[in-house]
Every structure is written in structure tokens, then in C-alpha cells.
């Protein structure tokens, strides 16, 4: 009871503070630059420029700082960087949650966009392994994917080890005839894919959506048993009655925004905008396409995207 009361009170206080700040604070509250984190993939670069331009239109000084996708959260938590527009459940969950728990970074809300990551095969694999769309079918031709280091097991090219996924566990739980090899970075995955693709060699690798791979390579995700909470708690659930974790990844992973905790006090108006910022899957794909296919630079693409989505942008900054 007290908890609900407390929550209600804080909600009211919070709301009134928010409206108060909107009423009295005049953007920009400070001339100090707001520092937006940039990573090294297309959609993040375009989106961070979009956010930068929206804030600049409000009168803020914006600077961009490149950072590693894992190292960035510590920098946000200590206030050296202020805002990250794309934090992925798949690759950054552990670092993100650590930074929020350590007090210093706040979760600035989720986008409408959802993310999915799963085992992925190029379409030509289906010619030699017709059932590969489903995990059982893929497992039947595991030997096609074997190499000197993994034989007689098939080789699954997995995500970087620091993304906090353990595919070895899933392989065990589903009793699959595969060995997960972790790459060091995403670029390595793509190099493996490109090489196999050019030679039509069988490959199964980790992939996710939305990213630029869809616009360059033809392929699909492998279907695993749809995950439910029971999968991870109840051994009897799923194909293997003796193991937990015998299911795939969710189709709707979150995509969040992360911000420095002090931002709300220092730049209340900007903080309000940041909380409202929301991209959908289609909008992200359109933004990335401007760069990956049309060959624009990230900043040009941001201008184009803003022009194309003027109403969306307007709804954030009011």
C-alpha cells in the first residue's frame, strides 16, 4: 500500500516538476556542450546526428564523441558523455544494467523499434541443406559446417564474447552437433559472411536486425523454439525434457536510450526531448539505407531524414 502511495506521490511530484521546468526553464539552460556518443555502425551514427540536430535547433551546443560500445556506459555514468541513442539488448545488456545499477546512468526509455538476434543462414545454404530454416533441420546437416578446428561438429560463428551471450549453453541444451566459435568484433562476423557468401560455402552465423546486412545479403534467421520464461526455469519445458535454456532468443528485444543522470537537472528541456525521442524499425531502416545504399554521409542522411519526418521530429520537441 505504502509503496503504491509513494509511487503515486512521486509521480505527481515528478510530473509537476517536469511541467514546472517546462514552464520556467528556457533552453538552452547551459552553454556547456551536450555530448552525444557515437559508435561505429550506420544507424547509430545517423540517429545520433538526428538527435544532435534536434537539440541544436533548441539552441544547445552539441558535440559528438566516439566510444566503444562497451566502454561508453562508464563514461555516461560519470557524466563525461551524456546521451546514447541506441543501446541494444543483445550486445549491451550487461554493461547497460551495470551502469544503471552503479548509479550515474539512467534509462531514458525504449524505442518502439524491437530487435532480434538469432542464428542466421544465407539462402543458398537451403540448396544443400533443405531443412536449415528450422533448428532440427540445420542440426541434421551439421557436418556441412565443420572445419579442421571443430570437426566432426559443425561450426557456428557466434557473437563477440563480451556481448554476454552463451550459445555453448544453448547448443548443449538442444543437444546440437555444433561448436560455437566466438568472434572478436562484429566486423569479423561480416568478413566471415562475405568470404563464405562469395564462394557459396555453407555458413551459419550470429546476426541481428535491424542492420545493414539485410540490404546486402540474402538470407534468413533459423527458427528455434519460441522462448517463454518457463524455458529457463522448468527443465521439462521444450524439446529437451532434461535441460533449461532449450529455446531461441526473443523476437522483440529492447532498444533503449541511455543518459547521464545529471542531465535532467542541468538541461531539463533537453532531457524532456530525449525521453520523447522514439524511432521505429522502419524509421531506423530508412535512416541506415540513406548511408548504406544511397552512399550519403551520416550527417547528410540525418538532414534528409529530418526533412522526410518533420512531423515526427516536431512531436519530440514540443
Amino acid at each position, binding site marked *: 500500500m505504502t509503496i503504491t502511495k509513494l509511487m503515486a506521490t512521486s509521480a505527481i511530484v515528478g510530473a509537476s516538476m517536469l511541467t514546472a521546468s517546462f514552464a520556467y526553464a528556457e533552453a538552452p539552460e547551459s552553454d556547456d556542450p551536450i555530448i552525444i556518443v557515437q559508435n*561505429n555502425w550506420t544507424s547509430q*551514427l545517423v540517429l545520433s546526428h538526428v538527435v544532435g540536430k534536434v537539440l541544436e535547433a533548441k539552441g544547445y551546443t552539441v558535440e559528438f564523441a566516439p566510444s566503444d560500445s562497451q566502454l*561508453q556506459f562508464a563514461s555516461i555514468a560519470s557524466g*563525461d558523455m551524456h546521451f546514447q541513442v541506441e543501446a541494444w539488448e543483445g550486445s549491451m545488456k550487461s*554493461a547497460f544494467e551495470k551502469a544503471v545499477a552503479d548509479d550515474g546512468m539512467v534509462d531514458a526509455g525504449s524505442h518502439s523499434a524491437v530487435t532480434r538476434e538469432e542464428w542466421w543462414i544465407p539462402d543458398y545454404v537451403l540448396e544443400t541443406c533443405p531443412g536449415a530454416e528450422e533448428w532440427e533441420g540445420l542440426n541434421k546437416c551439421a557436418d556441412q559446417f565443420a572445419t579442421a578446428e571443430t570437426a566432426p561438429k559443425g561450426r557456428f560463428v557466434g557473437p563477440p564474447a563480451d556481448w554476454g551471450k552463451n550459445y555453448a549453453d544453448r547448443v548443449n541444451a538442444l543437444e546440437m552437433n555444433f561448436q560455437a566459435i566466438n568472434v572478436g568484433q562484429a*566486423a*569479423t562476423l561480416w568478413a566471415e559472411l562475405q568470404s563464405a557468401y*562469395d*564462394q557459396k560455402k555453407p555458413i551459419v552465423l550470429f546476426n541481428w536486425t535491424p542492420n545493414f546486412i539485410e540490404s546486402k545479403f540474402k538470407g534468413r534467421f533459423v527458427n528455434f523454439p519460441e522462448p517463454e520464461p518457463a524455458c529457463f526455469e522448468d527443465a521439462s519445458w521444450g524439446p529437451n525434457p532434461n535441460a533449461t535454456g532449450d529455446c531461441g532468443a526473443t523476437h522483440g528485444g529492447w532498444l533503449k536510450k541511455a543518459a547521464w543522470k545529471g542531465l535532467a537537472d542541468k538541461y531539463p528541456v533537453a532531457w524532456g526531448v530525449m525521453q520523447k525521442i522514439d524511432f521505429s524499425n522502419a524509421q531506423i531502416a530508412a535512416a541506415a539505407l540513406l548511408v548504406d545504399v544511397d552512399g550519403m554521409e551520416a550527417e547528410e542522411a540525418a538532414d534528409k531524414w529530418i526533412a522526410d519526418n518533420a512531423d515526427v521530429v516536431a512531436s519530440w520537441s514540443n
Partner: protein
Amino acid sequence: MTDQAGGSTSTNFLPDSLKGHEAKVAYVAIITLGVLLSFVWSGATRWPQEWVLPLEGWITDGINWLKREAHIFGVQVKDITRAIGATLKLPIKWAEYLLFRGMKPLGLGPLPWVAVTAGVALLGHWIGGIRLAMLCLLSFLYLSFFHLWKDSMQTMAVVLVAVPLAALIGLGLGIWVTRSKRAAKIISPIFDLMQATPHMAYLAPVAAFFAAGPVTALIATVVFAMPPMARCTILGLQTVPSDILESGKMSGCTQRQLLWKVALPSAKRTLMLGLNQVVMQTLAMVVIASIAGQPGLGHKLLYSLQQLRIGLAIEQGIAITLLAIVLDRLTQGFAYREVDHFAATKSFLQRNWHWIAFIAILIVSYVAAEYFREVKILARKQTFSFAREMNDGIREFNKIAYPFLNPFKEWMTTYVLLNIRDFFLWLPWPVFVGTVALAAWRLGKAPVLWLCLALMASFIVTGFWVETMQTTYLVLISGIFCVLIGVPIGIWCSRSERVANITMSVCDTLQTFPSFIYLIPAIMLFNVSIFSNVIAIIPYATVPAIRYTYLGLKGISPVTIEAAKMNGATPSQSLWKVELPIAVPEIMLGINQTIMMALAMTAITALIGSTDLGQEVVRAISTQNYGRGILCGFFIAALGIIADRLIQAWASERKKQLGFNE
């Protein structure tokens, strides 16, 4: 720990030195005992979990405490480090204003590319005549016409601060070490640590204290680029011929004069090698620095690779290399510039036309930039790129070469690499520790023995034995390849000036051209595998072996070689019996550096995909597990230090045998 007891008691009851056959018996005994032990006690292959020292957690907690709570005289430690950071940021800020930000209060834009390019070309002409001028001009035109100008200037802003800072600190520390025995004892291992600890290990804590961004990048760069300068200063000052110092003293030099006017100038050759290394290492750090928040070429390069645009990454990589070469040639040229003896007879205009021309171009370009944007920076439509063609070329090459190279890789992997790896993973630690300890004791007596034992104990009791062995075998294999390739090339260079010139340019390129770029084609050809890791280490780590071998042989006085010839030595006798033995100290320094570089590269190979200490370092970043990152980084360095001490001890033993006195 049985073996440690064995190792230390042996100092008591064994004679001062072991004869050859006694040593063999001792080695066999250690190996047999170790293997037998592993049969009865599983802890000999993997340290028991319940005995693991939780050092990792203590370090993490310690750093978090320092970061959040620690105070010195009532001032929070973090505030102090932040203040230092702010001071370091000042010179970077100025460079940024000049090169790409512009000075808003004055209403001035950044230096137009036309002015910078002309300025560098004029500087090149002033220092090294028309050839150097052309090199500078073409390099900077490349930056502009391949649409890399702004990124290059962002990179330059940090480089221009890092190079002098690293060179000055290195010189200062080097001089200090030659002055004080105690300093030498403390500082020398610290240099080893600085160079061999992968940058990734300390990027996270440094970023925590100094704020991610250019300052952290600067600190990481200086930490990495400074030790070669210090080492070369030490080597240079120690090898100044005593008669030169003597004559300095006789003509009444004070201590200070002796250092600045006599010793340092006569050590110039080695000092300039140090500076060359500072420039190269600084540019080699550009990509790593971008992970810590430094914008510029490094950041763009990682982005290109992430999008599989290898062609674009190559163009950006070439820009980094060109910056390195231009900076290096300018500094080297400046140091060896001939004094103009006719200056007095020339008019003011003749003496100072470089400056006058630069100022004129500067003013004109600033004014012109107001009307023509092209003068300030070229738009993308006005620039070139062959990225797409290069990309297609690499893919085609891959398609053609894969069927030939892949069987070779499979063969190497199955018959060589996997066997060596399995051997190292099987190896019970008492065997490894015992043999290394015995070798250490035979070569370097108690000090080396104790150091090696302490370092080896550190990675065993903290539970990182398996990862350490993964790294050991990777570095061992790569190191052997590097020496086998590098030393002969170094010898070849010393025989032919032309070969040397070409090779040194290739070395500069290999050292500065970001290894990230050739990782991708390597992965396309060899997939994520041990073989790719070895291939990735070799180009970078071979460079010191070549360079120091060449320098060592080049530095031998012609009188010695002449004497050998007079005594009837054939060229090959002269090489093997006279020159190589004399050059051993420097070749060993080179091999030492090769091992350090190979170890440093294990963090890069972690980006291909590996399971060793390097991977642990990278993985620790995501969980902000400072302790794990630092520990694994330290273990990588520890391996380097063990190898270094053994090699050094062996080298000095060898020199004694050859009749050289130290």
C-alpha cells in the same frame, strides 16, 4: 608449491653452476616429477578453484574506492585527476582550434587546407629540400583529395601534442635512469609493463579517472609510445665511447655541459631511432585511441570496417601511414639538417622566404576561403575514392586465392598449431614453472629466479593458468616466425643500402598501417582461427627484429670490419664471427621488442576471436571488471618480462663467453 620449494632449495645444496650434463639431469627430473605429480593431483593441471586468490575482486573494489571515495588532503582523488586532465586538454584544445574547430570568438575558421598543405610543404623544403617538400605536398594533397581532411586534422590535433610529450618524458626518464642505479631498478620493469600491457586493459580505468575523450587517448598514447624513447636514450648514453666523455671532461665541461653538449649529441643516432619509434607508435595508436573517445581517422576506420568497406578503410589507413611518414621524415630531417654556412652572406629575403611565403599564403587563403568554400575544405563531390574498386579487388583475390591458401591453413592448423596448443594446454604448471625457474637460475642466478617465480606464481594462484598458456603458445609460435623472418632481412639490409631504404619504408608502413585493416582480409582468407591470429601478429612484431638487427650491424665501426678483412676473413666469416657477435646486444633488444609487440598484439587478435588473456582483457571492459582487465593485462606483460629477463641473462652470458666485457 612443491616446485618452488625445489627451485629454491637447489640454490642451497647445488654448486654455483651446473655443468651441461648435470643441468640435463635436473631438467629431466623436473619434467618427470611434474608429470607424475599431475597424475596424482589434478591441481597440477588446473589450480583448485577453492585456492584461487580473489585478487581480481580486490583490484576492482580498490579502483572503485579510489574513483568514488578516496581523498588526499581533503581533495577527492577524482577531482585531482580531472584537474590534471583539464591541463593536458589545453594544448589539445589549441591544436583543435587551429586545425578543425576554428576560433569562433575571433570569427576565424580553422586553417584552410590550402594553407596547411603549403605550410607543410614549405617546412619540408626548409628542412630537407625539394624531395622532402614533394613528399609533404603529395601526402597532404592525398588527405584533401580523398576526402579525409577533417578526420586527419582531428587525428593530428592529438598527435601534435602526444609526440613531443612522449619524446620529452622519454628523454628525461632515460637520462635519469643512466644517472641513478636505483631509478634503473624501478623504472626498467615499469617500461616493460607500459609497453607490454595491452592498451585495452587500462583504457577503462584511465577513462574513469581522466574522462573519456582526447585526454584519455593522449595518456594511453604517451604510455605506449614513450618507453622506446627512454630505452634508446639509455642505450645511447651508455654506449657513448668513453674517450669522447674523457675529452669532454678534459676540456673542462661541467656535468650539465657534459650531458647536453657532449653525451647527447654523440648519442644522436640512437636518440633519433627513439624519436622515430615515438612517431610510429603514436600513429599506431590512432585506432585504439578512438575506442577511448578520440574522433578522427581511427573512428572512421573502425566504422568502415564494421560496414565491410575495406577499400575505404585502406584509404583511411594510408592517411594514417602518410601522416606518420611525413612527421618522421620532418623530425629526422630537422635533426640532421646541415647548418647553412653561407647564411650571413644571404639577404633577409633569401634567408626567410619560407616564412614570408607561408604567411602570404595563409592570409590569401583565409581571405579566399570567404568566397570559395573549396579553399577551406573540399566538398565530397570534388574528391576521389577508389574504395569500391579496392573492395571488389579484395573480394576477387579472396575468391581466387582461397582454394589454394585454405588447404595450407588446414594443414598448418591440424599438424602444427593444434598440436602445439594441445601440448601447452596439457602441460602441468609445475613442469613449466620448474623448467623456467631452472633456466632462470642457471642464467641469471637469484634475482632473475625470484622475479620469474613471483610472476609465474601470480597467474597460477589467481586461476588464469589456462588463459596464460593460450597466450604463451600464440606468442611463442608468432615470435619464432618473426625472428626467422626478421633477422635475415635485417642482415640483408645491412649488406645493401638500397634494400635497407626500401625495407625501412615497408617497416614504417607495417608499424603504422592499422593492423585492424589486414585483419579483415586475413579473416576472409583464413576464417576465425588460430592461424589468422598468428598471421595478424607477424607483420607488426617482425618490424623490431628487422630494425634492430640492421641498426646493430650498421653501428659496428668500420675499423673492426676492416681488421677482420685484414686478418683474411671471408665476408661470411666476417658476418658470423665478427659482426653478428658484436651486434648481439642490439639484436637481442630487437627480439625483446618483438616479443613485447607480439604480446601487445594479442589484444588485437582478441578482435578476431581467441580464448586467451587478450580476450579476457577485452571482455572485462563490458562488465567494468577493472580487476580482471588489469590482471590479465598484467599477466601478458609478466610473460614479456620473464622472456625479457631470460633473454637478457642469456645474452650477457654469451657476451662473457665471447670475451666482451660489459
